[in-house]
């Protein structure tokens, strides 16, 4: 177990977040049990008031999840010199089995939180809370994810021992490594980039459709999800190469370092902005059914779609920039 | 009269600028002075083969804490109670804790 301020902050922060998510979940389930929108009884009024509490808690949680994600990566970055062989966050996360799974869960909870808030926001626009059931059932999943994330993170920090031999990004994200990280690094950069640009262009094309005609938000949501994943793979397989100007350095974390002007932060933030709002566009498509929402949703979808396209575009610009303005050519 | 939120936002802006100035600009202004001292310190460390910072001078094992042996924090007797304030703050050196 290592004890540094960031670890204390992360563990205690996650614990608090889990407690609040759980509290909100219990409240939500209580609401579902007695919910009756037709009734004007005092109990129904009290329940409606509780919906405010849940929305408030989760909007705060989204902010904290983002912060904790950034702090987690930054801390992994900062700790790397405590472990033999670690050169950046990739190595610190690899010290024990919990590091990467914590990171993956943190990303998923953050994205889920964002999508949930989008659904919640659209539900609040209607007079009759048409989405209350699906929305609160989704909270079960979300809370479980937050809880698991907290447990994994605690295991990760508890299991840290200084001096442990670990591998650095050079080996984890290397073309010789077995397993998923190696697979991603082994992908041919050129073809991955083609897949990336095709996915991006398709998403934008469908996005324009959504903006102009209002058709195809579900496809857009799906494509946004796919593009997010493809983009992450593309970062590892080729985008990183251009930033490092090294033919074999595939690390997705070194981008966060000073040497690369912290470019990782805007890069990933815009990617997730695009991903969350894009998937949100799709997620509320299934909710057009209720009459009270049928008029509100398309307008909302257009706005989300616009944000999503802007997010992906800026991400693509940041990713493309070094390819144009560098002499470096990786050997394809 | 200035609108209250405007006044507050100005305050935040000023505080933010002061903070940013301290965090990002001040170190640069200090750089030259600091570097000069650092070079001297590094020089001295190299020349004399020093291994420790002179932060805690109250006892042998705190003054050269990386050179202390496993038992010196116990004051020569394993049952002795620690009684230096800094003894409660420092760990035995890393290489002795290795399992």
């Amino acid at each position, binding site marked *: 177990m290592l004890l540094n301020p960031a670890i204390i902050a992360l563990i205690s922060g996650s614990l608090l977040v889990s407690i609040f998510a759980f509290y909100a979940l219990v409240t939500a389930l209580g609401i579902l049990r007695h919910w009756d929108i*037709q009734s*004007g*009884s005092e109990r129904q*009024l009290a329940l409606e008031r509780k919906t405010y509490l849940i929305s408030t808690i989760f909007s705060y949680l989204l902010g904290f999840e983002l912060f904790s994600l950034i702090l987690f990566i930054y801390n992994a970055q900062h700790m790397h010199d405590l472990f033999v062989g670690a050169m950046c966050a990739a190595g610190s996360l690899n010290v024990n089995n919990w590091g990467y799974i914590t990171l993956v869960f943190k990303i998923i909870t953050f994205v889920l939180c964002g999508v949930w808030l989008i659904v919640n926001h659209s539900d609040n626009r209607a*007079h*009759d809370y048409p989405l209350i059931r699906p929305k609160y059932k989704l909270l079960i999943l979300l809370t479980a994810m937050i809880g698991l994330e907290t447990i994994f993170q605690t295991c990760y920090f508890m299991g840290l021992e200084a001096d442990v031999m670990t591998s650095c990004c050079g080996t984890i994200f290397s073309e010789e490594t077995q397993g998923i990280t190696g697979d991603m690094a082994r992908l041919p950069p050129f073809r991955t980039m083609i897949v990336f640009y095709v996915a991006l262009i398709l998403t934008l094309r469908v996005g324009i459709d959504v903006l102009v005609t209002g058709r195809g938000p579900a496809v857009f949501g799906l494509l946004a999800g796919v593009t997010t994943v493809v983009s992450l793979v593309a970062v590892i397989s080729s985008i990183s190469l251009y930033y490092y100007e090294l033919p074999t350095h595939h690390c997705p974390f070194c981008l966060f370092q000073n040497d690369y002007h912290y470019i990782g932060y805007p890069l990933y933030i815009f990617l997730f902005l695009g991903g969350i709002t894009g998937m949100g566009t799709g997620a509320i498509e299934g909710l057009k059914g209720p009459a009270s929402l049928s008029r509100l949703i398309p307008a909302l979808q257009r706005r989300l779609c616009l944000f999503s396209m802007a997010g992906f575009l800026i991400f693509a610009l940041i990713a493309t920039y070094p390819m144009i303005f560098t002499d470096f050519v990786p050997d394809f | 009269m200035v609108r209250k939120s405007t006044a507050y936002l100005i305050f935040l802006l000023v505080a933010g600028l002061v903070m940013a100035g301290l965090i990002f600009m001040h170190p640069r202004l200090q750089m030259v002075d600091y570097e000069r001292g650092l070079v001297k310190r590094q020089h001295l460390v190299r020349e004399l083969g020093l291994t420790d910072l002179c932060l805690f001078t109250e006892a042998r094992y705190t003054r050269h804490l990386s050179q202390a042996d496993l038992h010196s924090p116990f004051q020569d007797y394993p049952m002795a109670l620690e009684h230096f304030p800094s003894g409660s703050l420092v760990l035995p050196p890393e290489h002795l804790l290795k399992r």
Partner: protein
Amino acid sequence: MIQLSGIKKTFNGGKSNEFKALRGIDLEVALNEVSVFIGPSGSGKTTLLSILGCMSRPTSGRIWLSGREITSLPERFAAETRRETFGFIFQNYNLIKGISVLENTMLPAYPTGMKYRVIRDRAVSLLEKLGIMSKSEEPVEHLSGGEQQRVAIARALINTPSIIIADEPTAHLDTELAQGLLDIFAGFRKEGKTILIASHDALVFESPVADRLISMRDGKIV
């Protein structure tokens, strides 16, 4: 036209201290009129006004405002309706102590997201019209009862509501001030506003301003 049908309101339903404030009210109130609800205290006037003003929901029964049903609105929409349609003048003025007259006047417009300048100009013109502009920067508690009443009126008007609800507006005023208030109400009627007043002050219901008297007792209209 405001229509009410079968409005009932029960407090602490199902408990030993259950209290039936309204026991079935059917009523139609015409717009652009001054309607005065009269009756002894505890007769349900205030409860009825708060239901009419979308402040609370009836236990059962429905209300239509110009044909739109407003009873089953969730809170956030009720608040919007309350803000945009109604202006309230409370018995105790209910101004927020410690903040200035001007800010108190502007408060109901804050959640609308209107431009600050617009709200401010409107508040200033209302305060000027009511003759208390000179005190606009003073904290409200420094004002006399009559002045506070006028601040409360200005606040009720800031969102240019079509319906004004006044609960015992003359309770703390001497005759002269009360008469002044009624003159202000008369002016509102001329502007085409609907005014609903609850009062057991003879000065109010005997005044020529009152177009219609609705008397209540024990939660019913009599």
